Structure formats: structure tokens, C-alpha cells
């Protein structure tokens, strides 16, 4: 087993708001291995973005607060680093791609300048012409046509898909070891989505960077990821490799997620969403956070009182946080036939 690039242990983040303390992330732990693509799936408010923002120190510290946890990256705990030291990692070893390309680029600065900035910050000695040619090269790599002209343009002259490509280019400018893509295609049209994912795949192949892909779209997970983490209400409820999870999910929430997807190959009369609504992160349900909506729980006391911990389910590296996940053995997910080895 190779050494993980990133090791997060017991990370907990909370936010102080007018209505109370929001427990955004509640004690999660996971590893990311070199070269792999790890998917983090969950609804809005599951804490998937917050955990990665915390890594880079991008959570405003009031009202946010990193309560506990470590994040070991190349033998340094990112969460304990001072601002200055952390800045050395940002944009160089660890890079982030954000969700909304429309607003993630500064509208009054040229795109080429913003990309160049990413390089110059970490390599101030580089000459302007070197930086410029590298910028053009990056744009070409991500598939932006006429990169030398485009570099002199402003963000509003780029289309949405192109902007996201530019963002991707910016993130890999310094060949990071870890790439975090926070819902990179959510704000884009479906056809553009496919293109941008393609670019992401190419870029990963080029740079061999480990990638954390955050999304709420199971389709993207199936296409891009090797391993998956499913999050709910700030906790990890299931984790494992992508085939196993799709073939044999062992947590009611994961099953619910998959069931709610319409299947193109069959005729379904009723759609089956998960009943209820996502829980309040201020007043989380006691015990297992999912129990009020769980079809498996059926009001059992254990679900209401005890927080389930991740324990081994079927297959190696497959864990589920459910008291009664054994009862799901033999449950075939909707997609089990589609999942080929």
C-alpha cells in the first residue's frame, strides 16, 4: 500500500451563527493516495466542501472554527501551519478548482495575467516571458483555442466552459501533488460538463496529481473516480471503491441516493426520492443523523441513540456507518447489472 498523499484524521469544523453553532464537519477521517481520484459525494450541507476548504485555510476563522483534527500532507499538518507557511502550499502543492467559473475569476484583470500570477507567486524569479509562454502552454493543454490571443482577454470574453478550463489550467500551473475540484461542473451545461471532465481527466494523466472530486452527481463519480466517500450531515457514512459502492451499497443513505436516480434502461412509474429533508446542522438528530429518513431504521432505539461508526462492510476498503448494515447484505443496488468489473 503506497503512502497516502493526504491523511485527514478527526477533522471537525463548526460555524458560529446567529441561530446557533453549525456543526459543518463532525470528525471525519480519510486518506488520499497518489494518482487516484477520490470522489466525495453528498447533498448540499453535507460538509463535503467545508472539509477541503479547511485544508487550505480558506474558512474565515470567525465565524468558522477548526475544532479538532489533523491533515497530514507530506509530513506537515496543514491545519497547524501558520499563514505564511500555508501560502507556500496553496497553489503550488495543493490546488483548488472552484465551482462557479463565472465568479471565480477577477473580471477586471486579463486571464493570462491571473494565470501568470499563480506562477509568479511561487516562482518570483521567473522572467515575464517564461511565465507568459508557460501560460499559453497551459491554456493549450486544457483545450482553449488560440491560447496566445485568449491570454490577453478578459474573463467576460470567455464562455463558461472556457473559463472553467482556464481555472483548471491555473490550478495545475505549478504541478500540484493534490488537486481539489469542488463541484467543477455543477454550474455548467451538461454538454460542457462532459468536455470539462474530459479536460480534467487529461490533466490528471499529465500531472499524475491525486484528485479529490467533490460532487453531488453520482454519474460523475461513476465516470471519474476510483474511490468514493459518501457524506451526510457532516459525517462519512460510507466509503469504498467505486465498483463496490455502486454494486453493493451498504448504507441506507447511499441506497437512497442511487434509488432516487432515474434509470434510463427501465420504465419506472414512480420516482423514489429520500423522504424528509436534510437535517439542520445546528440541531442534528441524535444518534445516527439519518435515522429520521431511514427505511432501514424503522424507529429502532439504537439508531436514535448511538452514533454509528464506520465498520467494515463487504469487500476490502469498504466501510459503512450503519448499525444494521448487515441486513443489507444481498441487497442489489439499482445499478448492480450495469456495474461491470
Amino acid at each position, binding site marked *: 500500500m503506497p503512502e497516502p498523499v493526504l491523511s485527514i484524521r478527526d477533522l471537525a469544523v463548526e460555524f458560529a451563527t446567529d441561530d446557533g453553532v453549525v456543526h459543518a464537519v463532525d470528525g471525519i477521517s480519510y486518506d488520499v493516495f497518489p494518482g487516484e481520484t477520490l470522489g466525495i459525494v453528498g447533498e448540499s450541507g453535507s460538509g463535503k466542501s467545508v472539509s477541503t476548504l479547511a485544508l*487550505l485555510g*480558506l474558512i474565515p476563522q470567525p465565524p468558522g472554527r477548526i475544532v479538532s483534527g489533523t491533515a497530514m500532507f507530506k509530513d506537515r499538518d496543514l491545519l497547524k501551519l501558520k499563514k505564511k507557511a500555508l501560502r*507556500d502550499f496553496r*497553489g503550488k502543492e495543493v*490546488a483548488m478548482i472552484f465551482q462557479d467559473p463565472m465568479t*471565480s475569476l*477577477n473580471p477586471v484583470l486579463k486571464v493570462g495575467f491571473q494565470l501568470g*500570477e499563480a506562477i509568479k*507567486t511561487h516562482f518570483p524569479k521567473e522572467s515575464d516571458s517564461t511565465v507568459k509562454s508557460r501560460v499559453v502552454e497551459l491554456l493549450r493543454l486544457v483545450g482553449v483555442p488560440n491560447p496566445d490571443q485568449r491570454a490577453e482577454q478578459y474573463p467576460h470574453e470567455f464562455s463558461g466552459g472556457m473559463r472553467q478550463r482556464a481555472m483548471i489550467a491555473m490550478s495545475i500551473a505549478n504541478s500540484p501533488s493534490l488537486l481539489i475540484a469542488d463541484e467543477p461542473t455543477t454550474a455548467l451545461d451538461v454538454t460542457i460538463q462532459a468536455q470539462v471532465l474530459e479536460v480534467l481527466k487529461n490533466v490528471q494523466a499529465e500531472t499524475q496529481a491525486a484528485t479529490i472530486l467533490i460532487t453531488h452527481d453520482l454519474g460523475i463519480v461513476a465516470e471519474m473516480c476510483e474511490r468514493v466517500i459518501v457524506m451526510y450531515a457532516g459525517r462519512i457514512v460510507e466509503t469504498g471503491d467505486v465498483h463496490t459502492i455502486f454494486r453493493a451499497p451498504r448504507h441506507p443513505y447511499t441506497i437512497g441516493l442511487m434509488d432516487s436516480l432515474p434509470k434510463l434502461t427501465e420504465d419506472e412509474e414512480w420516482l423514489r426520492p429520500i423522504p424528509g429533508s436534510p437535517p439542520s446542522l445546528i440541531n442534528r438528530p441524535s444518534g445516527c443523523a439519518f435515522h429520521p429518513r431511514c427505511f432501514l431504521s424503522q424507529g429502532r432505539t439504537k439508531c436514535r441513540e448511538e452514533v454509528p461508526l464506520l465498520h467494515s462492510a463487504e469487500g476490502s476498503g469498504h466501510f459503512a456507518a450503519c448499525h444494521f448494515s448487515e441486513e443489507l447484505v444481498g441487497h442489489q443496488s439499482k445499478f448492480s447489472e450495469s456495474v461491470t468489473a
Partner: protein
Amino acid sequence: MLTYIIRRVLYSIPVLIVSSFLSFTFVSLAGNPLGQLRIVPNISQNTLNNLSHQYHLDKPIPIRYMYWVEDVFTHKLGNSLQTLQPIWPDITRTLGHTLQVVMTAEILALILGILVGIFSATRQYSFFDYFFTSFSFLGFAMPVFWVALLLQIAFTDIYLHWHVRIFYASGLNSVPGGSAWSIDRLQHIALPVLTLMIISFALYSRFMRASMLDVLNTDYVRTARAKGLPEWRVIMGHVFRNALIPIITVAALNIGAVFGGAIITETIFTLDGIGFYFVNRLGAGDVYAVMAYLVVTSVIIVLFNLIADILYGFLDPRIRYE
């Protein structure tokens, strides 16, 4: 960029025409131009008739407007009906004085306001922030004339009690023939400048703070930080320029109000400025002089708006292509 500028300039012209026409109509209806003259003893009906004819007072307003426009260009705003002297020299003289006070006040207010706004935003909820926010609120609530009066009273008091003249409370000069920036002059314009500054400063500091906070929370600032830029570079390179953009609009819109404020301060501090001139001429019913004031001020306001538009286009590339 050039087309943008030209478009803005061309747009301003019809605005000026319509606004001057409206003003002219108002003023003509308001003033009884010959009213004052009629009181002059021994003035003959003949003279009145001649004057009436000369100034086209027997014609309908739109026609009079056309004559007036012609006057503006050929005879430099024509002659006052009262003094029968050309208006232009008065205008240029008084305008110069007013601009000195107004521009000094505005530039100081802008610089200080922007600086305070930046600091307040980056040190949100600190004592500094609360202090200046309170100051801003107070600044908005205090009427210009009150501030001016208080300052006048205060400094007159200081002089009367301690015989020390820090700032003058009236007039432009005590020493005739000084340069426009002599110490004497500066002492005289200090109070009016201070008065006008207070309200503008309140406006600019508050807007700058709000603008900074808006920008500090944008996605692109988060991207900049994620790239590893040091905080000062984030602020100077990304935040500052974007935050400045709305301030330009605010400053341009404020110019009209500042000229209004100038009317008040010049009245209180008896400065030989265009605002004081205006109030006098208005009280006397001197139509052409009042029109001259309105036109000149309109031109200046439109000019400032134009400058603001250009600056805006310079700072924000998105605007250039509209």
C-alpha cells in the same frame, strides 16, 4: 475605448440642451426681469419698452430661449438685466473661487474616505471601524448649514476670547491681492472646505467600506488566496481596484449635491463664489444671471459625470464593450 468616450460625450449634449431649456423656462416664469427696473425712479416707459424689445421679452419663451442660446455662444452669456453689465466676467471670477473650495474639499474627502473605508473593512468591528461608522452616520445627519454655522461661531468665539486667528469665518481674503493659494486665502477657505468635506467624507468612507466588504467576499478573491498570494497582494491587486469602481459613480453623483452645499457655505461664510452670486441674483430676479449659473453648473456636473464614466471604463473592462 475611444468609441465609448465619444458615445458618452454625444449623449451629454442633448441632456444639456433639454436641461438648459427646462431651467430657462422655470427661471423665466419665476423672474419678472424688469420688475426691479420698474422701481427705479424716472425710468421712462420708453426705456422699458426698448429694453423689453432688446431682450425679446415680448416673445414666447421658446423663442427667447433660442435668443438666449445664441447669446451664450456669441456674447458669452449675455448681459445682466439688472446691471446691464456682461455676466461672463462675474461668472469666471466666482466660479474660480468656488472650484477652489469644492475641489479641495472633494479631493481631500475622497482620499481620506477611501483610506478610512479600506481600513474599516479590513478591521471590521474594531474600535476604528465603529468610530468611523458612527462618524459617518453623524455626518449624514448634520445639515450643511448647521455645521457651517457652528464652525463659524466656534472660530469667531476663539478669536474673540483668545485673540488668536486660526481660521477666518468670512470672506475670501483679508489681505487684498494675494495669490489663490496664499496662507491668507487658505485660512479663509479652511472652514468652508471643512464643512463640505465632512459630508462627502462620510459618504465616501461608508461606500468604500461596503464596497471593500463586498469584494472581500467574492469568489475571485477566494481564488486569489487559494493561489497562495500574500494578503497584501490580494488587497492591492484584486480587491482595491474592484472596490474603487462604485466609488467613482458615487463621487460623480455627489458633485451636484456638493455644488448645492457650496451655495450654502458661500452664503454663510460670505465667499465670493458662484453659489453666493446665484442666491443674490435669484433674490433680485435677475433672469439671465440665474440662467448663467444654472447652465454653468449643469455643464460642470455633466462634465464630471463624463469624467467618471471614462474612469469607470478605464477601470472596468466590461463596460467598454457595452
